[in-house]
């Protein structure tokens, strides 16, 4: 059983949704990104998404773009991302990498899978890679025991939901809105119908992301999903506070609020 499968087994027994937290590697610096991840795991994040900063993040809104720019300007390389994965995995939380496809293709799909597995990574989230194009990745992920977390969207047809769910492992990432990453005032009305359409075609765990930023929203989403995925709101904690201590304590407070909201 993979680390991610084990996590969802546990949260099922505990009768709660898992909390998934995203932070880009190398933001605001390599060292601080590791401390931030350790902080959020201590405060209650169950699964870590380490972002691989990319020059052309078409699915990301201004907050995550800004973080990626800072990470790239700081000289973050793919090797640094793998170091951050290693540190994250050392906390005991299953750790996946969220990455646009070209850096993986450039590194070499097989080589990336091998090095990610060696660093203790559990899988990849691929926002611009659909199963239709994933032949090489399906093979490499199988070989190295990595989960392949594909995205589905409110616009996905039932046929594509079934196809994507079939190809996915670990969990399925349901994007709650038609749009890019970023905080939103209200949870999306599109998320719940999407999750129920998914439930008809799969019993794999479903995580819901895009726009969740506080405990109240997390509660709503946790009511119909297996995992609540939070990204921009966590990044904001680090963007908005200049001093590392303030930033990390804001991060801790947010995670505590999210987890409290998710208690059933």
């Amino acid at each position, binding site marked *: 059983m993979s680390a991610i499968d084990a996590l969802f087994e546990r949260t099922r027994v505990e009768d709660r949704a898992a909390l998934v937290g995203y932070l880009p590697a190398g933001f605001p610096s390599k060292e601080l990104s590791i401390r931030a991840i350790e902080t959020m795991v201590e405060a209650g994040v169950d699964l870590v998404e380490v972002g691989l900063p990319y020059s052309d993040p078409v699915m990301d809104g201004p907050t995550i773009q800004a973080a990626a720019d800072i990470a790239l300007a700081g000289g973050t390389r793919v090797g640094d991302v793998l170091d951050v994965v290693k540190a994250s995995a050392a906390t005991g939380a299953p750790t996946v990498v969220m990455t646009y496809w070209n850096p993986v293709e450039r590194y070499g799909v097989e080589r990336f899978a091998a090095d990610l597995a060696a660093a203790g990574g559990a899988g990849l989230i691929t926002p611009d890679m659909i199963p239709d194009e994933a032949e090489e990745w399906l093979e490499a992920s199988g070989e190295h025991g990595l989960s392949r977390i594909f995205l589905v969207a409110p*616009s996905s047809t039932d046929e594509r939901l079934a196809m994507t769910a079939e190809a996915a492992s670990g969990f399925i990432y349901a994007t709650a809105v038609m749009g*890019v990453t970023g905080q939103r005032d209200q949870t999306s009305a599109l998320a719940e119908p999407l999750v129920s359409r998914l439930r008809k075609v799969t019993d794999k765990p479903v995580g819901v992301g895009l726009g969740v930023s506080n405990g109240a929203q997390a509660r709503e989403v946790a009511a119909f999903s297996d995992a609540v995925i939070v990204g921009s709101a966590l990044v904001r904690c680090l963007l908005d506070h200049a001093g590392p201590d303030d930033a990390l304590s804001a991060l801790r407070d947010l995670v505590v609020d999210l987890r409290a909201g998710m208690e059933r």
Partner: protein
Amino acid sequence: MTVSPPAQPDARGHFGRFGGRFMPEALIAPLDEITEAWEDAKADPTFTAELARMLREYANVPSPLYEAHRFSETVGARILLKREDLNHTGAHKIRNVIGQALLAKRLGKPRAIAETGAGQHGVASATACAYLDLDCTVYMGEVDTERQALNVARMRMLGAEVVPVTTGSRTLKDAINEALRDWVSTVDTTHYLFGTAAGPHPFPAMVRDLTRGIGDEARAQSLELLGRLPDVAVACVGGGSNAIGLFTGFVADEEVRLVGIEAGGDGIETGRHAATITGGDIGVLHGARSYLLQDEDGQTLESHSISAGLDYPGVGPEHAHLAATGRAEYRPATDAEAMAAFELLCRTEGIIPAIESAHALAGAIVLAEELGSDATILVNLSGRGDKDVHTAAQYFGLIEEPVVLDEGTEE
């Protein structure tokens, strides 16, 4: 007119190993919708007749094929120019935008968005949207809105909203990113009027279908004028729309060499260029696998060219495929070579070419040297150079102060 069948990508949009759809899942259904709608439209005589009428009456298509006698004499081979510079808005781009704007109407979408480098595709899009009564938003890198104030004004005059993009390198590739971000949020009401034969399927094939009139017309016109086909067909390659439009007409004629000219900038060896196929590697950018300029980690590199319309670090996947199969060749022309060809066409023919098109002319000059006076070389003159007057005047030292009114309008 007999036309050769275009190379069709596979059902998922692959030309050989290139192309495909590397896009957020949210955009797959809309891309499927466009794919189907385009297939239906192409097979619908009402649609094709309407498009043909608009191109004829409004866009001034078909463009003439013109024998450039004095230019030929100077370069030492017979040079034919496909005069896309005479189209409405001054370039081949109008063919693509009218087709896609008409498709947007057919899809019932009241709004179109477009990206633009220095404004040429943006102006064409704003034009087509005014003509067909669509709301139009154009994304343009902030660096470019500052350099290209006149084209910003043109787009606004035509009723388009121009949004300066302040993310990333604040140039064309970032304008595409921002347009994609808009599109994923507004796709119910909005068509993405993509400006070149790149991007995710079906854009490379659809834009090719819309620009292939260039090559189909030129083929028939060559037969009429010469009684035979040219030896070589040459076009500049940015994203690849004018070149694929030209090449498609001749791809089945194996005796016709196809040569794409990329922007060599300061020279390939300097690293400051936009010659994606010549100087780049295979990877994924903006939804397709193709060649691109990237660093060791797969981060996109900035391109450099005196021609804003060629200044893009990617290229359409069908060109990657034509290069890989050897059916077409791709070569660079530097800024200096392009500007020399620009000047030569001005002086010998009284035609000011777009700096993009001047790259194709520079390629033709080299081919003329290689092939000698028996050769007939067809060059796609993809656009006119009015927009480039300021850049060229500065380059040749013809003005001392920047002419504020005509501030850089190149693309």
